[in-house]
């Protein structure tokens, strides 16, 4: 059975070019970049090349503004904890109710440790309440952390505007751009963004490598304390192979960003239109105009998401759901709840997230099979209205 992978916001396939690029560093070129000898020292040059490529992808002005980490979560933790340590007289963290757990759980942890945390809400379409955010900023705010795009709905937040607001309040601005990087063009150097997190495995590099952009001149305190690696900003011997693969993946992403916004977007739009046309009582969650080009979050009323996923899985289609039974808790996704999506829809939400490796055949298979799956579950559901 062919696997139709439509869960690219969860993780992505490693690009063959990225795999090829990293292999020598898992075999012959195993040297430590910190070594004095050329066998190790030469590897350091490869890390710097990767740094330049990542800097180019996000539009950083200087390669040295990129520091490599182990994942998006480490980047987020580093940014937020650094800001709180660097601005110890400011005790407030401002974030949103729809962040990834990497930020939300950290915020909860900081709150328990005595920091003040404000979580700004979103409207029914998942748009951030920018006025509410502006109102809470003050000289007590150490850091504002707002994701560039939401992982569940794909809704894009106005990070440049929020960055300016943070700057006016004298606070640092960090954005978790894990979902946005490689999908939409960005010029972080020209925006009022102090720190930006990204993750390798969301852009066709392997798991276990991420990066944090830190604008030159930003007060910074390391999270991983150890050796002098990454200019004393992140201790620990570098994940050389992962970093090299991330560099290659960044180069590929930059080259394909036009395709993301055209061909991938067209595939997503065809999937969306086709499902809405074929399946009654279905709605799209999130602002359809301000959205990542690859993401579709769609709800089917009166049916439950896990049941849909199990039936999709049986025909080789990989997607995810915001239903209670798949969220690892007993409640539906915190993002859909923050948006106020009615329960009749929230439990039946499915997220399809595409990549440049998807084809028309993938979309056709879902359009062919999913209407029958939903109809079958509605037959079983006690809530189905007689149409």
């Amino acid at each position, binding site marked *: 059975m062919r696997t139709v992978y439509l869960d690219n916001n969860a993780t992505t396939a490693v690009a063959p070019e990225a795999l090829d690029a990293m292999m020598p560093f898992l075999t012959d070129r195993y040297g430590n970049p910190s070594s004095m000898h050329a066998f190790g020292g030469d590897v350091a040059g490869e890390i710097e090349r990767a740094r330049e490529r990542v800097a180019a992808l996000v539009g950083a002005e200087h390669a040295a503004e990129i520091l490599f980490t182990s994942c998006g979560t480490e980047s987020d933790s580093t940014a937020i904890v650094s800001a709180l340590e660097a601005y110890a007289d400011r005790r407030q963290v401002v974030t949103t109710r729809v962040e990834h757990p990497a930020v939300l759980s950290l915020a909860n942890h900081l709150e328990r440790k005595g920091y003040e945390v404000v979580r700004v809400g979103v409207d029914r379409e998942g748009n951030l309440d920018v006025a509410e955010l502006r109102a809470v900023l003050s000289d007590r705010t150490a850091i504002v952390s707002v994701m560039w795009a939401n992982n569940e709905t794909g809704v894009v937040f106005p990070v440049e505007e929020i960055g300016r607001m943070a700057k006016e309040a004298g606070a640092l601005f960090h954005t978790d751009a894990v979902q946005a990087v490689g999908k939409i063009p960005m010029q972080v150097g020209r925006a009022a963004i102090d720190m930006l997190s990204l993750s390798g495995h969301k852009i066709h590099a392997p798991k276990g490598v991420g990066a944090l952009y830190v604008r030159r001149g930003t007060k910074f305190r390391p999270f991983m304390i150890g050796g002098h690696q990454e200019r004393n900003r992140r201790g620990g011997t570098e994940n050389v192979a992962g970093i090299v693969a991330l560099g290659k993946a960044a180069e590929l992403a930059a080259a394909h960003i036009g395709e993301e916004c055209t061909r991938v977007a067209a595939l997503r739009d065809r999937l969306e239109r086709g499902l809405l046309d074929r399946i009654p009582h279905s709605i799209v969650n999130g602002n359809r105009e301000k959205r990542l080009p690859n993401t579709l979050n769609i709800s089917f009323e009166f049916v439950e998401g*896990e049941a849909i996923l199990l039936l999709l899985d049986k025909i080789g289609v990989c997607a995810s759901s915001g*239903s209670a*039974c798949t969220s690892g808790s*007993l409640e539906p996704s915190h993002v859909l709840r923050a948006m106020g999506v009615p*329960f009749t829809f929230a*439990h039946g939400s499915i997220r399809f997230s595409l990549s440049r490796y998807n084809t028309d055949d993938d979309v056709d298979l879902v359009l062919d099979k999913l209407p029958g799956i939903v109809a079958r579950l509605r037959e*079983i559901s*006690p*809530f189905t209205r007689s149409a």
Partner: protein
Amino acid sequence: MAWDYSEKLKDHFYHPRNVGVIEDADGKAEVGSIACGDALTFYLKLDRDKKRIADARFKTFGCGSAIASASALTEMVVGKTLEEALRISNQDIADYLDGIPQEKMHCSVMGREALEAAVANARGERPEKVEHEEGGLVCRCFGVTEPKIERAIRENDLRTVEQVTHYTKAGGGCGTCAEEIQAIIDRVRRQQAETRPSAPPAQPRHLTNLRKIALIQETIEHEIRPALQKDGGDIELIDIEGDKVHIAFTGHCAGCKASGFTLAWAQDKLRELVSGSIVVVEHDAEEASR
């Protein structure tokens, strides 16, 4: 999260048995709700002698194990008398499916609840729609009462709050009732350790009208109101007619989808502390203005 479902459970999900409606059912029950993420409507039809279950049908909104549990239940009850059917425990449903993941045991509990309610309905004991059980509300997020939690603990020998959440969903939302659940576990285990027959139900008390009114006021003031105020709600005593206590919910409680549970909980408190025959009704504002 990928669940470790047995082949038999998967078979009952992919090919559910006895999906449907029995128009002239002898017993019907609706349990769960769309807000809570799963719901089950269960139908029973007795044979001509009204002795044995001749047919059972279901409709389920829910995940794979919820659908499979209901499907299994229909197969398990056919051919049984109502008494025999009532002996089916939630563990029996799980066993029939070669096991259900621990986190999903509440699906089997929902099946057992629907079965009991349908049998009660067939015997003319209960309306088909089960809004809530009698008893104090512990988990407000999922509307789970103390008797339901206590029963799940006893029947399945549960020892941790997490297990109680897996079996009843209680504590699976905001989590603020975790301590209360732990207290119930501790109490049940103490009682089990003592292996003493439980105390006989409280005798009805003979109260003068004035004494009763005073007791009702005291109970609302000191027992009920503080609990509601903790959640941003409030209660107002409107009138007392014999055993009928008219109240109104204000603040967060007004229009809250869980106010039905709150009402039942308030009634339970008054029955416990004042008189077993008390009935609490929500004051109808429209009727009052007429």
